[in-house]
């Protein structure tokens, strides 16, 4: 019986290193490609979802704008005031208190947006009638 030459077998046919390297690299590239494809698909789905969400939000915004516009229309406001029995009329000129730009001796102060506190004065007395 012929004894096996273990050493020889051990050093039997070996895939050449460069070839194996190319195959492994190819496999890695293929895997990367597949991963990239999946990632693109997933991002695409996300984008689609966000696009749909944006459209939905736009629809909602327009609906809300329409409702808001209706609510604050002069006709509706008048109706609501009447319902609450709040009688309102336009003020006469002498009923309007006008605030003008500041003069030193003024006793009224207002905060204007973006400015420091500015003093103003009123030029007419309020008349309540």
């Amino acid at each position: 019986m012929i004894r096996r030459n273990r050493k020889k077998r051990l050093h039997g046919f070996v895939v050449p290193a460069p070839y194996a390297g190319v195959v492994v690299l190819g496999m890695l590239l293929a895997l990367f490609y597949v991963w990239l494809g999946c990632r693109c698909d997933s991002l695409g789905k996300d984008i689609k979802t966000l696009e749909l969400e944006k459209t939905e939000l736009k629809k909602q915004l327009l609906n809300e704008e329409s409702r808001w516009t209706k609510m604050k229309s002069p006709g509706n406001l008048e109706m609501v005031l009447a319902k609450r029995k709040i009688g309102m009329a336009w003020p006469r000129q002498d009923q309007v208190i006008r605030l003008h730009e500041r003069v030193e001796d003024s006793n009224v102060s207002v905060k204007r947006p973006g400015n420091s506190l500015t003093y103003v004065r009123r030029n007419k007395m309020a008349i309540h009638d």
Partner: protein
Amino acid sequence: MTDQHTKGRFAFSIIVLMAAMTGLGMRLAFLHLGLEDKKREGVENSRRLEKKIHPGRGVICDRKGEGNILAINLFVKDVCADPSIVVKSNMTAKVAALLAGGLDIPVDEVAVRLNQPDKRFVYVKRMVRQEVAAEIEKQKPVGVFFQDTTARQYPHGNFMCHVLGFVNHEGVGGAGVELSLDKYLRGSPGCIETRVDALRQELYAQRSRYIPALEGANVILTLDQNVQYIVEKALDEVMVAHHAKGAWAIVEKVKTGEILAMASRPAYDLNEFSGAGDNAKLNRTMGMVYEPGSTFKPIVTAAALNEGLITPETVFNCENGAWKYCNRLLRDYHPYGNLTVADGIKKSSNILHAKVALLLGEKRFYQYLRAFGMGQRTGLDLPGEEVGILHPLSKWYGISITRIPIGQGISTTAMQMVNMISAIANDGCLMKPYIVRQVVKSDGSILFSNKPEVVSHPIRPETAAIMRKMLLGVTEDGGTGTKARVEGYEVAGKTGTAQKQVDGRYSSTAYTASFLGFLPVENPEIAIIVVVDEPQPVHLGGTVAAPVFGKIANQVARYLDIPSGSNSLTVPGENVAANRGVATAGIAGAKEMDSVGKGGF
């Protein structure tokens, strides 16, 4: 195992692998190259998706911008059904009841639509709001499905209907601003080319072309919705109080020509425009001509003053109310003897104005009429503006020179008239009126912007100042327009009561009552015209239209915070139109002295 065996196995596996790959390759080649063109096209088409992206139509806002939206595009749904499926399921009655309840249409109507087994598609109701469609969708009715679409929505119904106009079902503007600015509002459609999976879901990574839709630009008008509301409410009231056939009014800023309000009655609901008749759709402020009557008199007076032919103190003999010229009688409503020009305009004497026109002469008078914009479009940026009727001199009759000055034998639009009075108020500068302030893209950039434009200078500033003073007399005691007074302001104006032509003759029952004026006299800010068509039974401009003017002017002046221009001019008691109902203010105790020409052609 020997090396030989290993090599053999390796070679075998390589061969098997190669064979498999070759097989796959051949199959692939067969699928891609060997298929018939038709089949390949079919496969391709089933995976391809080409879609047009509809742009959103721009919004229309009042002068305050996007805070006050007047027209907006909403996403809505068309409720559709496949009658064959509904009928097969034997649930026609149930589905019809469900749809009828949700969509507010009669059950019978829905049942008839669904009961068509040979049809595959019917609209149950178009342009249904999302919430309503969602409610129906929840109950999953058999054979019913929904299509996404957009619809033009006018949140305020018939508010500003004649200015805004409407958009037809194809999305094209059909009237008003919607028509005139359609090219800006419409936007530009985009498109998408992509591939879909077996479930018709888009494969985003394979989107080959995407051109986003260009949203329509937004239009900002010069109209103020609060001023418009005041005007529309006043017109609605006068329509009811005087059983009028129609009524219309314009509020214009005299210094710029901006239109703050433009309303016409009858009106119609813009969301139901298809059901409205032509009569309701007519914008009478600029699309209807009428004989202006006495409101036309300021032109001849201004012209003669400008030529230096008369002064406010020049006296004319008013022939005790009846004067023959070219064998045709001209009458005054009340007989007068000698009147100054200032009194003539205050009391609206026909004879005095006819004599002033004779003094001026046909040629000069015609030139002034043209200079004031008569017989020409004002150039307002709305469709359907009428030119009016001003015959050329060659077609004037012998008595035309005595009738045109009193507003007979000439037809104008309310727009032309308010523009004329604005010119007098604006130191003789005739401005081009405009209703569109800006067209703004969705990114905020301005595409188009209107600016005040001077058209002509028909009279000198000094003449205009004299005219303003004389027209103030009309609303003072003894004038024809006392009911147009506004508490705290000096109002100048002119009343008009014109007989309408019926079957070629002047009617004794059908009149057009109008009032034309501006305020405050010292530094005019706004001009207003109010015209009431065939008011009954009272028909005088000073009784019907002047109180409406007063009511509008009173509120608008306070709302716009117009300085009075004089020291607290408060008009006492009875004749002040402020805060009073038109109905009660107009009829009771009318002391109308407006003249009506009885001569006629």
